[in-house]
Each structure stands twice: as C-alpha cells, then as structure tokens.
C-alpha cells in the first residue's frame, strides 16, 4: 500500500522522536479531516485510514477517534474490510461502553449470517475481546452454534474455543445445560480440529464440574489409543514432523488428568497400554534430526508422565517414567534437562518412585554445580529438596550449603529456607542441626530471615540435650572477628539462656562470655542491641559475679542516655531491676524460657508463602503427610500456622514502663514479655509470687501419700521431661494442648495448668478434675483460646505416685476424655542446701544406715557432658556443691525435702561418673 511508503520514510529517515511525533500528528490531522469531510468515504478508503490509525496506535501513540468508522466497517460485506474492522476492535476497543452495543449488533448479524467466514470473524472477535458485555450478549447463543448439526467444522472449532474463553473470563455467565452432553460427543467427531478444540473446552469445564463430563474419559482414552497406535501416515493432515497429532495427544492426556484412574478394568488396561506405547516410542531412534520432531515427541511424553504421576497407582510405569527422565537429565538439550528436573520433582513425592528418583542424586548434584543456566540450577535445588529424606539429608544439605556460597542472588533466600527446613526435618542429632544453621548464617547471613533464627532458638530451648552444645558452638562462632548480625542475635539469646552450661570452663567463663558479646554490641543495629541488653540482664541472674561489670555497662551514658528510646528504657529498667530485686525475684523473673509449644515450622510457612499458589505447595503437603505417617519428626511441623510471630525476647516490644513506677511484685510482670506470646497470660500470674507462699489458700490440695493411680488411659509421654524442669508442655494432641508452669517452695507447690484449644470450634462442658481435689476450670474453651486452672499442693508426707488430672469435654458433639499425670514428684520439694565439704561429709556419715543409701550403676543414655549433668542435677532440685569431692568427675548435690509433718529427710545421693537421670529418681522416691 502506498501509505506504508510514507510511514516507512518517516520512521527510517526521521532522526528524532520529535520528528516522528510531528509526522504522525500531521497524518492524524489528515485522517481526521477525511473522516469529518463532507463526502462519504468509500469502503476502501475507510479501511485504509482505519488501518493507518491502527498502525499509529501500535507504534505507541494514543488514538482517540476512528472507533465509529471501524464499527461501520463491520457491516461491510467485503471480507478484507470486515477483517480490518474486527482487528481494530479487538486491539483498541476494550470496554468502550458507548460502542459496545453497536459492536454487539454487528457481531450478532455476522453470527446469524450462516456464512462460515463471517461467523468465524465474529467468533474470533468475541474470543479476543472476551469482555463481560460480550459474554452477556453471546454466552447463550454460542453453545447453540457449537452443537447445531449443520454447523461447519471450522465454525465449531471457533465456537468451542470462544466458549472456552468466555468461560474463563466470566464463568458465571456461561450456562451449563443439555448442550454439555453433546459437547462430550464432539470427541468422536471425524474432524480432528474439532476434537482438539472440544478437548480444550471439556478440560476447562471438567475442572469446574467433573461429574458432568465423566463420560469424556472413555471417549478420550479411545481417541488417544487410536492416535498413539496409528501409523503416522493415517493422520496425514495432523502429523507434525512425523509425530501423530501431538497437540491433540497432549490435550487428551491433560483432560485425563482431571480424573482419577478409570475403575473399569478394560479401560484402564487400554490406557496403560497407551502410556506404555508412548514410553516405548521415546526409546525408538528419532525419525528426523529436526528439533521440532523431538520437541513434539517429548511434549507428548512429558504429558504422559504427568498423567502417570497424577494417577500415582502403577509402580512399573512410575519407575519407567523415572528412568526415562533420568536419561534426559544428561541430555545435551538444556530444555530437556530443565523439564526432566521439573517432572522428577513431582515424581519424588510418589512413594513408588521416591527410591528410583534418589538413585539420580549424583547427577542432580552435578547439575547444581555445572549448569550454566540459573533457572536450571534452581530446578536442581527444588529436586534435591524434594528427594531429600533421612538417608541422604546430610549429603544434600552439605551440597546445598556449598552451592550457597556462589549461588545466584535471586535464589539465595529460597535455598536458605530450604536448608533450614531440611536440617530441622531430618536432624537425627541436633548438634548437626545447630552446626548447619550456624553455617547457614555464616555463609549467607543476609539472606537468613527472622523465621530461620527464631526457629533455631525454639528448637534449642525445647531440646535440653543440645543446649550445652549450642552454647559452646555459638560461643566459638562468636570468636570470629567479623560475624553476621544474625549470629550475634542467636549467640546473645543462647548465651543469655544457657551460658551457665559452659561457664565452668575458664576459657568461657561468665566474664569472657559477656565481654565477647559486648564486643559486638556497638556494631549492631538497635533491635539486636535491645536483645543483647536482655541477655545482659539474664547474665546478672545466671552469674552474680559479673553483676557489677554489667551494671557498669548499663549505667554508662551510651546506654542510659541513648538516643533510642527503646534502648534507653531497657537500660534504665534492667539497671533498676538488678539493683532493687532480690536474688529470688531475679531468678523468677529471669528464669529460663519455657519450651515452645510445638507447631508448624514458621520457616515452612514462609516457604509456602514465598512460593505462592504456583509451583510446589502440594508436593510439600504430600511429603509432609508422608513424613507424619513415617512418624519421623512430624510433630515439629504440624499444627497451626500461627508460628510466624515468635518474638521470644520481643526485641522490638518494649517492656511497659511500669517497672520503674513501683516496687510491687506485679510490676515485675511486664518482663514476662520475655516469655513471648506462648507463655501464660500475666493476668493469672500477677499474684503468683505473693500467693504461692501464703497459707490461707482457698483450694489447697493436701496431696495424700497414697494416691491410687487413676483409671483410664494415662498420658505420661511428657511426664519424664518434668523431672528436672518446672515448665513446659505436658500433653498435646490434635485438639488440646496442656501447658504447665509450676512453683515450689518448701512443702508447698502451685501448678498453673493451661488448657489451649487448638481447634477452630469451642469445647463445651469442659471439666478437668484432679483425683483429689477440684477447683473447676471454666466450662467452655473458646476456639483458639486458653484457660487456666490453678492447683495448690502441699506435701504432707513422702509419696511415690503422681496425681492424675481427669479431663472431659465435648468437641463437635463427641465426648472426649483423657487422663494426664501431673508431674508432681518428690524431688520437687527439694530445697537446695549449700554446705562446705566438712559439713557435707559429717551429714553423709550420719546417714550411714544401709537401707538409707541407694547406689546404682547404669549405662549413660546420652553423651556424658559435664555441663549437662550439672544442669540436670540442679534441675533435680538439689544444690550442686563444687569442691566437696576432690575428684572432678564425681558430682555432689545436697537438698532438703520439706513435708508438712516436718519430718526432715536429708537425701544425699552419690553417683559415680554418670548422668543423673529419670531412672534414679524413680528408685530414689521409692525409698522414702
């Protein structure tokens, strides 16, 4: 066309943008005058100018006129003029409501014209625009066109695809009706084009209402079988580079993925046969060297593998699929390697092929190291994550860590999350877990999100066997001259909690620990500094000997007059607290953190969020399910989703300023925010320190000596944990979590029992009775809420059995009841007694009667670690006497048990080179 010449000239000779705009404006003015001109334009010139406008629009300029002329073109009876009109409309008219009625009118005429070419144009236009207005106008007509007997094949195809489009943009407007049954029969159509279009449509509709299209399964399998087994010449028109109807095959396989494997045996056999044939064909030598041939063939193959994975029922097919993908892993085509990694990722979640996938681990690790394309490496990471299980976790985590050092920045955070999850999920010994996470922080500290370091602390707090090791490791890691701030946070927190476990060693004495932490202080951001201040005050509690040093630091101007209000407040309050509070109060306020309730790992939640609705979530779910079945560490990652906010030390939440205002006991409770949101609500605890010791308690339970064991199923899985601890989770199932916080002083004890409702519905008629006394808990527990019950205990005489708590409630109509043993043991009434060597041996000798001594020699169940042993002895309730026994491998403890009868028992226990464990406590208590 002539005008292209002009445009050609100005585009390719025009030097500047301005020149182009100038030229276009001139052209636009010209067109405008033509449209506005007196004499009516003929069809050809109208088409010409509309086409010019379109061109100018596509060059990126705005067009604000000419719509009317374009709509006029629709009513032309020349094909080329109509075509330009429709093109203009589908490119430029999105929802210009003034014109939509006119356009719809034109479309209606064309649809009713019975001229297949015009009908096609109209259907294209509806499909391309797909606006709601059009859907409203045509959604009812198009199904009729689709199933009418006299419709031409080409129009049927367009109608099917047009309906598909409308169904996607406004599904509510497409009526389902008797036409649906007839659409299914289009799968039998002679014309393969119609079948292809119909398959697409049915696949989409079947996702919405699978039952309506069930009959499509058998037809699709029959169709597929005919294509797969036919010699390619049979389908001349639809053979693409020697592959028979690849598009249709892919679509049929897609459609079958909307349904479970067919139940009918014959049908199922036929489908299996098809899938086998497709897998066989992959082994045949290629019929053409062209990449199109292999692409088309493999497209069908990959879709078939997707179907096999979807059915997940034929082990032989799954393993064959896996082997086929294994071949592709080393293919020279990057595309195939990428797809093989991707498919294998889903294959890894099937129990039949998980092992087969694992055999490719070396290849995948190699891919991680050598692939030049980051998106392929990303797939390799995904696959490693998916194929990881207990047997190969160490290897995979190590490989991921070493990859992390040079990983692409865009995927680092994801890898960090994955490593953290795998390390936690498959940790056999938790020292490995701690090492891995610290390594992670060292290698990629910037990408370690809050969730990751929260989680490591949760785990360390919940596992007493790893606390000493964790303290030692962070202490060593902090020695590095430059360490990441996240490491300082973890280090500060862990040393603050468990620094005492390594304080025995002179190289990590309290003062050294403190100085080490403080050397990092000035390099850190405000939240970290706030956290460190909390660690310091915990140090004051743990190590009275560094109190003066720490107070000195808190008192310095840089703290007390810090510009940051949070830091200043913490410094002031902690300083005051350390000055006015007695050791007892300090010990209560700054007590070790109670274990966190076990729930879904916040990291996992984060990874899911990050992945969004897209790629992998269902695999994770499936895997998780399976993990639970295998009862690995399932408990660590099930439960509610609320774990993401776990501000243990609440580094950003300032303690309310009331600490300063009064010296009352209640004012200390704001510090309870150290316990985080999982800890008991302060409302109940506020009176704790006062009440525990008063004698005028309303509901003191006089724990009898001979409590008969309660009937019914006893839950005492967590019971033994409480021998050396006072706080924690006593019982947990899917519905209910029971937490415990207890306090003992001489012969009195008070237990706070917290019943947490983990479900989303209310518990009704909730009763919880002790077999000896009752102070009723509230009768309803709201969804997600927690209620508290207080139990007071007095030890009258010595005893062996623990009281049992009977719990009954209605949940969703069914009565639930179980019995939980309360961890009240004799050793809880220990009063630590400090004495010097001479006194000790004097008393020791007084208790010389043979029946008064128990000695037991047993094999250590855990590693023999001095610090752990010490912690256990102290937790047991006795005082640890250093320097009494000249042999450092002997531990000496002393304590007094108070009972109401004021019979004094002096228990002095001697154990030779062992860990003081639960077994001994059983034996001990029986003797009294």
């Amino acid at each position, binding site marked *: 066309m002539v005008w*292209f010449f002009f445009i*050609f000239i100005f585009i390719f000779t025009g030097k500047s943008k301005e020149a182009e705009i100038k030229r276009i404006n001139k052209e636009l003015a010209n067109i405008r005058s033509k449209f506005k001109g007196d004499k009516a334009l003929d069809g050809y010139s109208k088409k010409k100018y509309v*086409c010019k406008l*379109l*061109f100018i629009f*596509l060059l990126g300029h705005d067009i604000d006129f000419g719509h009317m002329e374009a709509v006029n073109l629709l009513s032309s009876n020349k*094909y*080329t003029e109509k*075509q*330009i009109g429709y*093109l203009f409309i589908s*490119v430029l008219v*999105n929802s210009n409501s003034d014109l939509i009625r006119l356009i719809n009118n034109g479309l209606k005429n064309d649809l009713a014209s019975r001229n297949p070419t015009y009908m096609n144009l109209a*259907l*294209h236009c509806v*499909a*391309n625009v*797909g*606006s709601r207005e059009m859907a409203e106008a045509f959604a009812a007509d198009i199904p009729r066109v689709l199933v009418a007997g006299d419709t031409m094949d*080409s129009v049927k*195809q*367009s109608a099917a*695809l*047009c309906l*598909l*489009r409308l169904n*996607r*943009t406004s599904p509510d407007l497409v009526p389902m009706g008797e036409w649906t049954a007839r659409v299914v029969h289009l799968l039998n159509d002679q014309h393969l*084009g119609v079948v*292809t*279009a119909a398959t*697409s449509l049915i696949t989409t509709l079947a996702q919405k209402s699978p039952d309506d299209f069930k009959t499509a399964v058998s037809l699709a399998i029959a169709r597929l079988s005919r294509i797969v087994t036919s010699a390619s010449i049979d389908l001349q*028109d639809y053979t*693409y580079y020697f592959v028979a109807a*690849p*598009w249709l095959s*892919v679509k049929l396989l*897609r459609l079958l*993925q909307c349904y479970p494997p067919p139940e009918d045996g014959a049908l199922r056999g036929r489908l299996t046969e098809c899938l086998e044939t497709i897998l066989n064909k992959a082994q045949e030598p290629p019929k053409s060297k062209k990449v*199109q041939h292999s*692409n*088309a063939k*493999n*497209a069908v193959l*990959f*879709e078939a593998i997707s179907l096999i994975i979807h059915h997940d029922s034929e082990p032989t097919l799954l393993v064959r699929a896996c082997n086929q993908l294994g071949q592709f892993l080393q293919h020279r085509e*990057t*595309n195939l*390697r*990428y*797809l093989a990694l991707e498919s294998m990722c889903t294959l890894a979640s099937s129990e039949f092929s998980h092992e087969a996938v694992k055999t490719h681990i070396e290849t995948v690790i190699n891919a991680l190291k050598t692939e*030049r*394309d980051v*998106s*392929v490496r*990303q797939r390799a990471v995904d696959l490693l994550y998916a194929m990881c299980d207990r047997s190969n976790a160490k290897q995979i985590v190590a490989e991921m860590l070493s990859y992390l050092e040079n990983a692409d920045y865009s995927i680092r955070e994801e890898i960090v999350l994955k490593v953290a999850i795998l390390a936690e999920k498959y940790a056999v010994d938790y020292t490995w877990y701690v090492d891995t996470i610290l390594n992670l922080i060292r290698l990629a500290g910037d990408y370690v999100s809050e969730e990751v370091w929260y989680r490591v602390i949760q785990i360390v707090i919940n596992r007493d066997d790893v606390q000493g090791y964790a303290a030692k490791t962070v202490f060593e890691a902090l020695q590095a001259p430059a360490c990441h701030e996240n490491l300082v946070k973890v280090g500060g927190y862990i040393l603050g909690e468990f620094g005492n476990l390594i304080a025995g060693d002179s190289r990590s004495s309290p003062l050294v620990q403190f100085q080490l932490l403080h050397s990092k202080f000035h390099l850190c951001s405000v939240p970290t500094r706030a956290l460190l201040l909390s660690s310091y005050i915990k140090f004051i509690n743990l190590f009275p000997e560094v109190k003066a040093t720490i107070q000195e630091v808190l008192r310095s101007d840089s703290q007390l007059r810090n510009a940051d209000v949070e830091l200043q407040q913490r410094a002031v309050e902690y300083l005051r607290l350390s000055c006015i509070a007695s050791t007892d109060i300090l010990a209560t306020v700054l007590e070790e953190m109670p274990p966190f309730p076990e729930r879904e790992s916040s990291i996992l939640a984060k990874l899911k969020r990050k992945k*969004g*609705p*897209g*790629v992998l979530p269902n695999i994770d779910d499936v895997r998780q399910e399976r993990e639970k079945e295998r009862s690995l560490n399932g408990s660590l990652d099930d439960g509610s989703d609320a774990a993401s906010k776990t501000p243990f030390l609440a580094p950003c939440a300032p303690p309310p300023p009331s600490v300063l205002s009064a010296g009352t006991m209640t004012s200390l409770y704001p510090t309870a925010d150290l316990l985080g949101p999982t800890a008991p609500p302060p409302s109940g605890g506020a009176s704790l320190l006062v009440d525990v010791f008063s004698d005028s308690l309303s509901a003191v339970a006089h724990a009898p000596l001979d409590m008969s064991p309660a009937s019914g199923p006893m839950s005492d899985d967590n019971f033994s944990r409480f021998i050396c601890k006072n706080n924690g989770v006593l019982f947990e199932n899917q519905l209910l979590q029971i937490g415990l916080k207890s306090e003992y002083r001489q012969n009195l004890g008070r237990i706070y029992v917290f019943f947490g409702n983990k479900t989303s519905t209310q518990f009704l008629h909730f009763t919880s009775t002790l077999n000896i006394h009752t102070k009723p808990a509230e009768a309803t527990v709201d969804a997600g809420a927690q209620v508290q019950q207080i139990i007071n205990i007095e030890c009258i005489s010595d005893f062996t059995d623990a009281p049992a708590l009977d719990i009954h409630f209605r949940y969703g109509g069914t009565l639930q009841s179980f019995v939980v043993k309360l961890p009240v043991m004799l050793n809880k009434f220990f009063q630590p007694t400090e004495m010097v060597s001479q006194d000790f041996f004097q008393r020791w000798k007084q208790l010389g009667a043979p029946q008064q001594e128990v000695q037991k020699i047993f094999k250590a169940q855990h590693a023999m670690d001095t610090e752990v042993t010490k912690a256990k002895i102290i937790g047991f309730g006795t005082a640890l006497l250093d320097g009494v026994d000249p042999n450092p491998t002997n531990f000496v403890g002393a304590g007094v048990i108070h009972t109401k009868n004021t019979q004094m028992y002096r228990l002095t226990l001697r154990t030779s080179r062992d860990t003081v464990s639960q077994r001994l406590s059983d034996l001990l208590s029986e003797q009294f």
Partner: protein
Amino acid sequence: MQFMLLFSRQGKLRLQKWYVPLSDKERKKISRDLVQTILARKPKMCSFLEWRDLKIVYKRYASLYFCCAVEDQDNELITLEIIHRYVELLDKYFGSVCELDIIFNFEKAYFILDEFLLGGRPRRRPRRMC
C-alpha cells in the same frame, strides 16, 4: 496461554496478543519487565523460565524473540512448537519472513495468529490467506 509477545533484540515490541483482561498499564509493565528479563539471558540457556506465577516459553528467530506466557499446568514443549508453527506459517505466507515483514504487514501477522490461535489455543492449520 495468557499472552504472546514478539519483540526485537533492541527490546522494541513488534506484536502483542493478550488473552487475559489486563489494563494498559499492567500490560506495559509486564512487557517491559519480561523483555528485559529475556534479553538478559544468554543464547544457550533453556527456553523456559518461571516468572511471577507464570511459565514463560521463548525462542529467538533471527532478530526477533517470540515469547509466550502459559499457565503452570501447560506443556512447555508443545508451546515451543506452537511458536515454531507460527513462524512456519509466517514464513510460508511471506516467503522467508523477516522482521520488516512483520512491521509493515502487522495486520497480516495478527490475522495469521488469529487464524492459528484462538483464545490462546491452537485452532487449526490456517487456510491460505485471502
């Protein structure tokens, strides 16, 4: 398929076809981001990539990039062949097609695409254009 873009090595869009309703602003942003992402990739890299929650399939023919965005469950290889088929069709029509053909006969390129793909699905082997 969600959309198809054709753009040159200089990043200039030559053809765009959207099968999802999006505002002009979103369209511009998506094409700008995507063109940058793809142009930054090296020739030997694989033709698929994850981009937001879509799968992108692209291929370069001479100076033109053909790029399709498909949904998660769609087949990548067959999409690659859709692109190739489209190029073959253009080639047949124009007789060894080049970028200029598409610039100056954009309406033909659109018509061929419409004949071939409807609502983002391949439809049939197009008849000879009139």
